[in-house]
C-alpha cells in the first residue's frame, strides 16, 4: 500500500525540502543560527553581491539535485516508469 501512494508523497517531500531550504532564511534570522540563510540576509544587508550570487547558484544546484532525486525515486517506486526506457 505504501508503495502505491508513495509517488505523491515523494513529490510533496521534494517540494517541502525545497521550501524548507528557502524558508531557512526566516528560521535562521529568528533563532540567530549561523547558517546559510543568515549568511544571505547578512550579505543582502551589506549589499555583498558575490555572496548573493554564490548563494543563489548553490541553492539552484541543490534544487536541481532535489528534483533529480525525486525523478529517480519515481522510477525506483513505479515499475511502469522503468520499462518505458527499454521500449
Amino acid at each position, binding site marked *: 500500500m505504501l508503495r502505491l501512494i508513495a509517488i505523491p508523497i515523494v513529490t510533496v517531500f521534494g517540494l517541502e525540502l*525545497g*521550501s524548507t*531550504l*528557502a*524558508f531557512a*532564511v*526566516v528560521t535562521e*534570522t*529568528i533563532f540567530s543560527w549561523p547558517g546559510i540563510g543568515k549568511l*544571505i*540576509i547578512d550579505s*543582502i*544587508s551589506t*549589499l555583498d553581491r558575490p555572496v*548573493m550570487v554564490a548563494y*543563489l547558484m548553490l*541553492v*539552484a544546484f541543490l*534544487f536541481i539535485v532535489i*528534483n533529480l532525486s525525486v525523478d529517480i525515486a519515481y522510477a525506483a517506486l513505479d515499475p511502469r516508469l522503468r520499462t518505458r526506457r527499454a521500449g
Partner: protein
Amino acid sequence: MDKTSPLARFWEEFQQSCVAVVALGVVLLIMLLALAAPLISPQNPYDLANLVLMDARRPPGFVGSKGFTHWLGTDAQGRDLLSAILYGLRISIQIGIIAGSIAFVLGATLGAFAAYFGGRIEALIMRIIDLQLSFPAILLALVLAALLGQGKWPLIAALVTAQYAYFARTAHGAASTERSKDYVDAALSTPLAASRVVFRHILPNCLPPLIVVATVQIANSIALEATLSFLGLGLPVTEPSLGMLIANGFQYMLSGRYWISIYPGVALIVLIVAINLVGDQVRDQINPRLRR
C-alpha cells in the same frame, strides 16, 4: 427552470458553507477596519507628537497617560498596538491587492497569449514559467527586494515577479482547452486582431480558475510581504506593515512582553486563513467534479 443570474446562484451555493460565509465576513470586517483605521483607531501611531515614552511596553489593558485604554498594550515607542495593527493591516492589504492584481493581469495575459500562439512562443514562455515555479518564490523576492532597494514599488515588483508564474500557468491550462473550442475557431475566421480574440473571447472563459488562484495569491503576497518586512527587506520604516510590527516586538518576546509581536501576528494569521477559506470554498464550487 430558474431565471436567477449566475452570480446569485453562486452566492446561494456559497452560503451553504457556514465556514466560508464566516470567513468572508471576517475578511470584509478586517478590510473595513483597515480602511477606516484613521477614523476608529484611538491614536495616530505614526504621529510622534502623540507618543508618550512613559507608556512604552505596557501590557494589554493599560490605561495610558492620554486617558484611553491600550487594549492590546503598547510597543517600545509607546505606540498603541491596536492602532498600529489597524494601520499596518491597511498597508499589508494594500500591497497584497496591488501586487496580486498586477500579477493577475500580467500572468493571465502571458498565459493566454502563450496558449493562443502555440508552437515556439508557447514553449519559450511556458519553460520560463516552469523554471520560475521550480524555484521558491521567497528566494526570488528576497534577492529582488535586495537588488531593487527599499520602497513600496520595488517591493510590489518583487512580489509580482515571484507570483505571476502561478497565474500564467493557470491561464495557460484553461486557455489551451478553450483554444480548441468551436467558438474560438469562429472568432478566428473573422478578421479580428489576435489581442481582441484573446481578451474578449478566450480570457473571459478562463476567469473562474484564475479567480481561485487570485484569492490564494493575494493571501500569499500578504504573507510574503510580511516575511520580507520581517527580514528588513520590505517597506521602509515610514510605512510600517504587519511584518515590521512583528519584527519590532520580536526582541521583547523572551522578556515576557509577548503582546508586541503576538497580536500583529494573530491579525496576520486571521486575515490569511480567512482569505484562504474563502478561496477553498470558491475552488470547490468551481470544480465540476465536486458538484452535486
